[in-house]
């Protein structure tokens, strides 16, 4: 429905240490028309984030070395208006972990719920811009 609107050109950075999950999620998002870049850990993600602009970052929480909350905080320090969605295997994350994200979703939810949330956050930002 939104395939022709400006959103389809939106760039998304997808971060997850699970390679299979990351690949499939990239496919899902690309199918929806997004330009997707991936990173398998926090450091790589931050490097990409510094060099290129992204409309949205989809972050896994539990990752080795640097968890999603830490990555989110670092990104907001670079760009305070960064749009970040936390996608975690855990049902509930502590409040502190969600301080620097726009939304939090649980892995395993229906893919449409995920896509709708992403679309809403990007368009809300676009209209607010």
């Amino acid at each position, binding site marked *: 429905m939104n395939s022709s609107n400006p959103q389809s050109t939106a760039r998304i950075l997808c971060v997850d240490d699970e390679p299979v999950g990351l690949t499939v999620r990239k496919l899902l998002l690309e199918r929806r028309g997004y330009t997707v870049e991936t990173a398998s850990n926090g450091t790589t993600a931050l490097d990409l984030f510094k060099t290129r602009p992204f409309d949205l970052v989809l972050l896994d929480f539990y990752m080795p070395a640097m968890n999603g909350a830490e990555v989110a905080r670092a990104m907001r320090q670079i760009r305070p208006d960064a749009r970040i969605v936390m996608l975690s295997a855990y049902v*509930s994350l502590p409040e502190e972990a969600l301080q620097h994200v726009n939304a939090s979703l649980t892995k395993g939810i229906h893919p449409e719920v995920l896509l709708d949330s992403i679309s809403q956050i990007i368009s809300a930002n676009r209209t607010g811009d």
Partner: protein
Amino acid sequence: MEPRTFSRILRTSLLIPTLVIMVMAAIVGWELQQLRTALTWVDRADRVISEMRLTLRSMVDEETGLRGYLLTRRDEFLQPYNNAIPRVETQLASLSDLTADNSPQQQRLQQIRSSYDLWMMYSQRMLSDQSALTASSFESNMEGKKLMDQIRNQFEETIRAEYQLRDERVRKSADLDKLFLGSLIALTVVLGSSLAFFTRRQLLGLSHAYDQMLADSRRKTVQVEEQREWVSTTLRSIGDAVIATDSEGKVSLMNAVACQLTGWTEEEARGKDLQDVFKIVNQETREAVENPVSKVRRMNKVVGLANHTVLISKNGTEYNIDDSGSPIRNSDGELVGIVLVFRDITREYQMQRTLRTTEKLALAGRLSATIAHEIHNPLDTVSNVLYLIRADSQGETLKHVDLAMQELQRVSQVTRSMLSLYRESKTPVPVSVKEVLESVLSLFDRKISGNEVRIAKSLPSSLTVEGFPAELRQVFSNLIGNALDAVGQHGALSLIASKTAAKGDLPAGVSVVIADNGTGISQDNLSKLFLPFFTTKGEQGTGIGLWVSKGIVDKHGGTIAVDSSTEADYHGTSFTVWLPEKFTGERHSPKVQVEMEKGKQLETA
């Protein structure tokens, strides 16, 4: 004082006076003997004197007779003379015998004898000379007279000597007598007074010893009494329960704690068999535990009780106890009793159980985190893959993919519900009552459909309260779980949530009624329902579910109330949880409301 010393004193007190009296008797006896001997000698002197006088008379008789005969020449005048001759001989012999011990007297007697012999010769001559002339001649008369005078003189002298001797002897005996009397008096005084002194000393010693013994025994009695009092007070003050028995296992002492735990008073229990008063069973098997008395006797040392021992008091209350039994031995090492020390460890035991439950919960928390990670990640991937496949599918395949996605969503929902039980949040958040109840119900899906339980729901989605979702889930999970346990198969459950307006002190809130048509809860149990570790489910129940639930509701500033009926016509239980819309924190004295509203039948669809 020792009995040996006592008998020694007694012995000397008897022996010494006896010895003294014997010595005195010996002395007196000896002195008496001396006196008697002295008197015998006086007596002999008397006899000598009288014998001498008799002898002299006999001789004078001879002379008289002779003179008469010489003058008259008549034979009858000669008769005394003739009669006296043998008598004189006998008397002289007797005198010689009597004075045998006295040589001067013997000599004198010898002289008398000689003079007498001379006289006798004279008398014979006179008798043989028949001439009267001669006989009557002056010369011859003078000769006889001279001889006789000499004899008389000699006798006088001898008698005088004997008198002197007698006087001496009398004096000697008198001296002896005096000495005897004096010594007797002296002895009596000396010995008597020393005996009196000695006896007094002995008696004083004895009386002193007796006093000391009395004081000793009094002090010992006081000591024993004090010691007994001390032991008794100590035993009674001990925080642990103490029961002492004799060697037969009959109760001889119980302290207050023991009375409280066993439910027996000390008076009732005294003399009873220990196993009647101290009833212990194994908590799990309910089998009687070996009587500690026989165990101590068998092992002959301090023994402890096995774990999970429960004491059943007189009124049926049960206590988890920790116990040890020790033998009481006398100085010879014989077993004279057993002392049992035990204490109520019910609280510790339950704390341990709670701790174990908490540990289980913590373990479950860690486990759930792992499960979340290991299930949600592949689940997410599979879900995405199916979604991608779905976009390229049509017809039958599309249907199949939809079915697969549907089932996958079910898995996702169940895992999320289960895992969210352990979620922890630090600040209250708005919670949808409907969501919470639905997610809890989804956990019991299998049980509900398996038991064919009918569920009636009235859960408006608009109702929210501020709180901790995981904790509220736990509350409703406990209540719904209990209700499902209560109804068993083919039962009915109703869940009704409704808004309550602010009224007086009470702010606006949401009330949730969870009702079942189970057998109901007895009035007796109803009052204990929210106490920790109270359970009607036996080993299946932890007894903390409702207690924890009440704690959570209190923490949210809400109330929890129960209403139950066990009547045959209308039976069942309903719990009403009221929660304020805005999180207010714990209210003061949130009391559990337990009301019995008979006649209000539970309605379930």
